């Protein structure tokens, strides 16, 4: 829809404009210690323009689906991700990060990768981020520390982030588009939203003969993990075990240090 409204620009020009406005928007929005309401509004406008540019570019390159649900959840993910880094309050940043993760999980669910989507929520949003929030709430009950109000190197990081985004858009768009006609809609997106991907006939695409997102994807995932990637799984398990032992060791050393302090104390008291 956006592509129809915009004048027929080439994808390259569109992408360059989107990257430039994304960089400017991030630079304006990143916290720098001074509050300037006009700059923030301008930043938000530029950010919206950048998003529209990226969507239009994706449409031109043919890498973006048409499903409304997909667009919604991916916009939630991107906007929340931006809000995570530009917001001033650490607690709000954590909440925005949780929103971003929910959006990513939604994208994965729409794409049919159910396990990854749900695992994202369980691991990141459910466990890690709750710990973050816990610490943030306990650490700064009263207001913000001064070093939380400024971001270091706002210009460089904004430009680097925007350029990375542009390059990724270009690469993924090129990859997913048919090599002959850049603007053709890929066959994947022809499926109607609401149909589960698993039940979709995949006869048109010969590469999905062994569809990893098929009906019993958990079983396939497990077989894959404990078949081809057994070594990686074992190494990861070993790493976690080492971390666990390390945590226990740190705790017991802390107690030993306390004991040593007590010894020191009694020595000093004697001396």
């Amino acid at each position: 829809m956006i592509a129809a409204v915009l004048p027929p620009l080439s994808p390259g020009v569109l992408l360059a404009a989107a990257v430039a406005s994304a960089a400017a928007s991030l630079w304006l929005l990143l916290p720098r210690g001074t509050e300037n309401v006009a700059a923030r509004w301008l930043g938000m406008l530029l950010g919206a323009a950048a998003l529209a540019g990226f969507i239009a570019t994706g449409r031109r390159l043919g890498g973006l689906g048409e499903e409304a649900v997909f667009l919604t959840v991916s916009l939630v993910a991107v906007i929340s991700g931006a809000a995570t880094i530009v917001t001033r309050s650490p607690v709000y940043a954590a909440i925005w990060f949780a929103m971003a993760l929910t959006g990513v999980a939604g994208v994965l669910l729409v794409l049919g990768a159910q396990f990854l989507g749900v695992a994202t929520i369980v691991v990141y949003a459910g466990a890690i981020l709750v710990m973050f929030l816990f610490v943030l709430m306990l650490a700064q009950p009263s207001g913000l520390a001064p070093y939380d109000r400024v971001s270091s190197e706002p210009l460089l990081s904004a430009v680097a982030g925007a350029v990375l985004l542009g390059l990724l858009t270009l690469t993924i768009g090129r990859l997913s588009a048919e090599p002959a006609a850049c603007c053709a809609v890929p066959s994947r997106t022809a499926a109607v939203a609401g149909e589960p991907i698993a039940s979709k006939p995949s006869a048109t695409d010969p590469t999905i003969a062994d569809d990893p997102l098929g009906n019993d994807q958990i079983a396939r995932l497990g077989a894959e993990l404990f078949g081809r990637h057994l070594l990686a799984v074992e190494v990861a398990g070993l790493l976690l075990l080492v971390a666990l032992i390390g945590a226990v060791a740190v705790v017991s050393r802390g107690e030993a240090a306390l004991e040593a302090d007590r010894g020191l104390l009694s020595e000093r008291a004697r001396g």
Partner: protein
Amino acid sequence: MNSLSTLLPSPTTLAALAKIGLLIGGLMTAAAYLVLLERWIAAWVQDRRGPNRVGIPLTKIRLFGLGQPLADGLKIILKEDFTPKHVDKVLYNAAPLVILAASLAIFAAIPFGSVLPPLNIPGLPDPVPFLVAPGLDVGVLWVFALSSIAVYGVLLGGWASNNKYGFLGGLRSSAQLVAYEIPLGLGLLGVVLAAGSLKLDTIMNAQAETGIWYAFAQPLGFLVFLVASFAEAARLPFDLPEAEQELVGGYHTEYSGIKLLLFLVAEFLHMITAAFLIVIMFLGGWHLWGVTGSGNEVSWAGAFLRFGVLSAKILAVIVFFMLVRWSWPRFRFDQLMNLAWKVMLPLGLANLVTVAAVEEFRPQLVAALGAGPASWLAIAIPWAVFFVGWIAAGVFTPSGTDNRPIRARGPLDIEHDLLEHELAGSR
């Protein structure tokens, strides 16, 4: 693309929306009447009469107090929705929404209607299964994920209230929920391992086929899951997040009116979810020996019978939840954490190892002993582990019932002592 028909939602979408509407309406009504049931049971336990007056309005018909939920609901909705000045407005308003939305979305994966034959509605391409999200391959994980989202509601509600009681309640609650998620997951893993699927449907069918409910095959897993789901639902004896005597109302101290209602409904929904999970995963779902059969092809009468069995079991578990509430005192916080990390976690691991070993060697057992004795042995081994684990937990648990004050000396104490000594030296 431009025709009108694409703008209208497709019949499949409409059917899904209808199912969601039915589900939410049914759950809300169920929650309201469960409050009434809870009050009746409380009254019965305490030898009172309980609510028995409200009947049909403007008449004198009492109907045993069945009008009470409606009156309660109206009262709490019409109450002033007061927002204190000192709260963080955005998060204060978002917290009840988060917790209620997460508790409701859990039910998308819960199979109410796997027991009903698919219904053919004209105009629809496929038969409509009685499940909001059919084809969700990760049903158990979905439930798990969304119940971990519900923690945010509690934590944010406590923090945004900007009130020390609320904040302490929120912190306690999040620590408790995070701690008990691990035994909950371990109890669940045993069932997933035995059934070989994350689909709640398949888990029920596996129990119906063998006739052995997982509560009998994995007693230790059942115990761990039951205790952990009490803690996750924050029911007594695990209701520390809102211990009235210590924290006023816990994380919803500052809430009133409809926002308070949302919190309370979400709490009840957690209990209903827990009851559903316990019944589906450990108590055989719709299966009852000699009554419901075990196949997937059923008539409408058989389907309703199964639905009745499922509902009766769920109601029984909920009544059990409510009776426990009036039978046990509340844990202290260190007892709660000891129970989670030093008792439930090892027991859950023991259960997981046992189940894995039994499932691994089941073919060899069947080959050596024949099918009958092998299945008896596969039940006997977990029970042996259950009793050994129980005794070990009884003997080796840290003495969490000791009420003498314990105070560990921390770095601050040492600093303090050092300072005092230095002061004494300089004098």
